[in-house]
């Protein structure tokens, strides 16, 4: 089947079987480097994307569901101010993410902050529940989320 969607702001047409996983399309057809296909069960988060504005596991989305959708991957997100806020927080905590979980972690942090201006620890832990990558301690991620939330508040409202 032929599907058309917006990928990082540009229109993409792909001819693919209807049941193909979106993660496979992004990786193989669109050559998106930040999307990995590891578990294919939505557990490892290495294929996380922003699907119509929400963080989603692209391995759980079949091609036919992606028709006319708006997809943002880490490549597209890295051009935004929000990305730089998150990266600044990571730098301040002295942490580097591994290539496998980088996209999933950053986009998950973004989606938490879109939902909660000042997320508490429970909300952050809920968002990262089941996260299996051992490269970064969850305590550091909690710090990063809280720091990023602070930068965003400062930028938007000029307050702490």
């Amino acid at each position, binding site marked *: 089947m032929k599907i058309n969607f917006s990928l990082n702001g540009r229109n993409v047409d792909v001819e693919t*079987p*209807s049941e193909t996983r979106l993660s496979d399309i992004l990786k193989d057809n669109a050559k998106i480097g930040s999307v990995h296909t590891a578990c294919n069960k939505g557990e490892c988060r290495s294929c996380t994307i922003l699907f119509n504005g929400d963080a989603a596991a692209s391995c759980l989305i079949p091609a036919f569901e992606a028709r006319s959708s708006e997809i943002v991957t880490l490549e597209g997100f890295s051009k935004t101010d929000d990305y730089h806020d998150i990266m600044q927080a990571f730098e301040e905590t002295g942490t580097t993410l591994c290539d496998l979980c980088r996209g999933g972690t950053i986009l998950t942090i973004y989606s938490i902050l879109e939902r909660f201006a000042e997320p508490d620890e429970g909300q952050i832990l809920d968002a990262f529940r*089941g996260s299996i990558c051992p490269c970064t301690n969850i305590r550091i991620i909690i710090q990063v989320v809280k720091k990023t939330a602070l930068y965003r508040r400062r930028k938007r409202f000029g307050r702490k």
Partner: protein
Amino acid sequence: MAENRTGRNIFAPKSVSELLSIKQQHPDTLLWAGGTALMRQQNIHPSFSKDIIQLSGIRELKKIRRTERYLEIGACVPIKKILNVGQHVLPFALSEALRSIAPPHIRNRATLGGNLCCRSRRLNTYSVLILMDAILEIRKSGKSRWVGLNRLFTRKGKDSIQDNEVVTRIRIPLNVWNLQYFTAVGDPFYDPFNAISFSLLMETHKGLISQVRFAVGNIGKTIVRSIDFESYLTEKKLKLRPKEIDNAVEYFKKAMEQTEVLTSFQKERTIRFILWFLHELRDYNLFTE
């Protein structure tokens, strides 16, 4: 609207009436809501042999309505949207059950209808909604009927939905329960033989238990509930005596032996949970009147 490229039709109706007429003409089609459970199950291609009806374009199935007596949720409302309804509207046990389904990046797409109608297994919200007397609207072309969730599946796991029927709405009565509790131990997808969930609803009046409902869910085809256990606890005075706690546990043990759906480890977890909450009730720790 049908597309035929790879020998499989993908229908994308825009309204319920269009959906029902497609289902009438093609009863052997697979309804695709969020698809999160289906996509997790299929690791080997070609995965789906059936034609598919994609439900994501039907707005009527994505509505939430609230009256004084009940909450009505469209079958294709994503879990995320239901959780956004708010703590004061959503019954606490249901909200906990929804939260336990999966992390947010899956909850964003998973739907309540999908969670309830998963044929191969009873997922987390099923036991809570049974205790809450939830009913489902099932429609087919020119007809609709309401069915109690407890009648949706038989004990052997066979569902009562005909091939040309579709679940469109879930209606949840908003009864006032003094105590609502839901907890899921382990993740049913990662650890199906040990994961288990406990749902409890209780109403008390002047120090007496006036109504109690308790169900144990695992990933199997049915849940465990004991009417003897519930009726034994009804009208008991709070601050249960040790003998009463032992008797209540015995009633639930019998029910677990009769249904034979739990593994020995799950049974052990269940007994420990019952002992824990009955002792907590004795100490008035779980709620204040």
